[in-house]
């Protein structure tokens, strides 16, 4: 169990700058997700940590050892990194047991007791003699995980490990993996473009944007107190409204709302951008609130998401609202919008 520390990391491919000064501290024993849209450089960051590529500048430290720095480069085979690639990448010419035992010294490989124990840990006991192509996608992913854990790695790196699984399987494998890491106490870094996955799986989430870490926080903070409006739109659904702040409150199209003082940027006076999450809005048939008409209604089972056009401004921005339960509201239904609790705002320039 080691911590991982990245400072001032740069990496370019040709003239294309992929990482532009990444700083990140991953505490020992935690599960950290690196979240970013495709092409944001998150896989590159993972490959630099694993040692498959060298950084152009900056340092990577695992535990007390600098593994990539101006004058140091530790090759991947000496980093004790457990790497789980996107497609699992099992060795097709080896059995499951031989795959799991691949990184062990020849003495421990014989007999296969250790491999069998790891297969049990990932819930695949008895499948040791199969070949990778005889396994389902989820099983292959678990074998890849067992193989990575076999070398008792200082850190496990997972590159979109659940992306190739179907939705139903993804949730269960994700929960299993989380549980395995908790029990083994391993430091794990997970790369994903799926914000749902990042928020629900990780202890801490680092959002990678334009080659830099835009925000690094626990999932709740990331969702409730994003560092800027752009991030608020990236993590979950968001209504971003213009407003004018004064004396602890902000005036918006949805009325005068109290300001949340705990935001990352202190706001006092003047032009601001206001974040209102869809679940912060209550719908009512009553007089109280801003009147509007439903323009679309999407039903998800556990909740429903509506788009509402406020009546005072029929050409303006529509408001997204999430409701739990309640009646079906076809387009055209009249509703009133009321915002619950304080809202977050950032100064606008």
């Amino acid at each position, binding site marked *: 169990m080691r911590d991982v520390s990245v*400072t001032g990391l740069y990496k370019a491919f040709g003239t294309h700058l992929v990482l532009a000064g990444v700083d990140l501290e991953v505490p020992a024993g935690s599960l950290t997700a690196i979240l970013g849209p495709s092409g944001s450089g998150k896989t590159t960051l993972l490959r630099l940590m*694993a040692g*498959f590529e060298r950084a152009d*500048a*900056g340092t990577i430290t695992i535990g007390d050892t600098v593994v990539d720095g101006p004058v140091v480069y530790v090759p991947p085979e000496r980093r004790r990194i457990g790497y789980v690639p996107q*497609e699992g990448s099992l*060795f*097709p010419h080896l059995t499951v047991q031989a795959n799991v035992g691949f990184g062990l010294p020849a003495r421990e490989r014989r007999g296969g007791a250790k491999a069998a124990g790891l297969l049990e840990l990932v819930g695949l006991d008895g499948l040791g003699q199969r070949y990778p*192509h005889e396994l389902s996608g989820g099983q292959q992913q678990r074998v890849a995980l067992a193989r990575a854990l*076999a070398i008792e790695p200082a850190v496990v790196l997972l590159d979109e490990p659940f992306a190739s699984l179907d939705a139903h399987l993804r949730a269960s494998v994700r929960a299993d993996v989380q549980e395995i890491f908790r029990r083994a106490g391993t430091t794990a870094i997970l790369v994903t473009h799926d914000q749902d996955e990042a928020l629900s799986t990780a202890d801490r989430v680092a959002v990678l944007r334009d080659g830099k870490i835009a925000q690094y926080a626990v999932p709740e903070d990331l969702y409730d107190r994003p560092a800027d409006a752009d991030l608020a739109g990236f993590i979950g659904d968001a209504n971003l409204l213009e407003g004018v702040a004064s004396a602890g409150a902000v005036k918006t199209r949805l009325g005068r709302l109290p300001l949340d003082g705990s935001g990352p940027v202190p706001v006092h006076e003047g032009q601001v951008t206001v974040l209102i999450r869809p679940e912060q809005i209550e719908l009512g048939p009553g007089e109280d609130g801003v009147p509007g008409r439903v323009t679309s209604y999407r039903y998800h089972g556990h909740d429903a998401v509506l788009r509402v056009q406020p009546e005072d401004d029929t050409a303006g921005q529509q408001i997204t609202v999430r409701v739990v339960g309640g009646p079906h509201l076809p387009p055209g239904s009249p509703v009133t919008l009321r915002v619950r609790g304080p809202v977050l705002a950032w100064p606008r320039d």
Partner: protein
Amino acid sequence: MAATGTLADRQDAPGRPSPQRTRRPVALLTGSYLVAAVLALPLVFLLIEARGAGASAVAHLIFRPLTGTLLWNTVRLTVVVTAACAVIGTLAAWCVERTDLPGRRALAVLVVVPLAIPDFVVSFGWNSLWIWAQGFRGAVIVMTLAVYPLVYLPVAASLRSADPGQEEVARALGSGRVRTFVRITLGQARGAIAGGCLLVALVLLAEYGAFEILGYQTFTTEIFYEFHSYSFSASCALSLVLVLLGMLVLAADGLVRGRGRVARSGPLTQRVSPPQRLGQARWPVLAAFIALILLALGVPVGAAIYWIVDGLPPVLSGGANVSLLDAAGHTTAYSAAAGLLATVMSFPVAMLAIRHSGRMRHLLERSTYLVLGMPGVVIAFALSYFTERYAAGFGYGTSMLLIACYAIMFFPLALVGVKASLARAPVSLDEVARSLGQRRLAVLGRVTLRLAGPGLVAAFCLVFLSAVTELTATLLLIPTGTQTLATQFWVYETNLSYSQAAPFALVMIIVATLPSIVLGRFFNRTAQAQG
């Protein structure tokens, strides 16, 4: 260590050898350039000789009526045979891989075996049985039957690994069976067809023995003749024209290939599509296959047996008491050594091409194909020239030089096989292996070579069977006092002693058939069968 820093001031940090920390694959690059340099020797030799003769002399030798005749003969034969091979090879591959043709497993092997029969044995078979099989007509028949497997093999392999889903989608979008074949299937196999045609065209440019027997005059037969009458400047001038033709073929291949790449889903998720039903058409198709195999395989083998059983009494009696076994031993030993050498040589070039693509590296890889279009006699002369000139005759007259010559001649064939096999060992597996604590060499042994193994054997076999059937360079470089199957066959054949030549032809076919069956099996393996 500073916690922050810009790119610029980091670059000035002490001990930094270069602004980029990323390592270039130095060992691979060095190996590849070395191999490319060795392969360039024949061309360098031609240029040195041409310079010695003087520009005006070379121009005089090139611009004469004979060159026009040779050009016409060579070009029309290359075009016609390449087209015929493309059609036969592609159709045969599609029938075997994608239809419910009866007995296609057996056909898949039989259809490849003609590759094992030396071109000059095929022409001997036809020409010795039927006098009309000569000239342009004979050359087209013989060469098509001898080399179409060079198209069949890569096309069958690509059809086998191509995504069958694309055909299904095309059918679902309302495209008929024929349109689907033309627009989707041929599109998927385009690169493989082009690659096969490239090999066929280059092999045709360099062919000597078959054309000599058929009395068909091409650049290569003329170059051989001029070399033997010691008019070096004339043969070099003609060789340079031939090299230009080879470059044209390569350029045409590059154009056809285009920049398109075939996207594939992961190899482990490969689905096998149900074969297309031929229905009533399957019996005529089967008959066509049997006819093809009879013509390509039956005629030369039958001719050899006919001349052994029913042959005229030996023309050369007494003196030429060469043991069949000795000749077979020499052939096998030289060819095996050449196969090994060529496979090892092609490894760095293939690795560079597959794992570290780049413009210069691509050009380097493509340029190595040129050697396939050069007559063996030119390569042999180039090697003896350089050893005599710069290595004090080291190795001259020994089997070493002959083996090196084979390895250079058939390097492109090894490269094709090694590249195909390395594509089966994706770089991501290497990375995983390294993250599991394995050093580079261990990864090579435990992962890359294990996965690429069957393909490396295939590359070896391709070179082996080509070397078994090589004639012109062997005639020049063979150590004094030894004979191979090919050279001894040639001695008897040119003296019209068919009954004595025939056993050598038969043994040659047997020695070369085994590797060709291995080849057929390698190219037929599915991804699944790897387990």
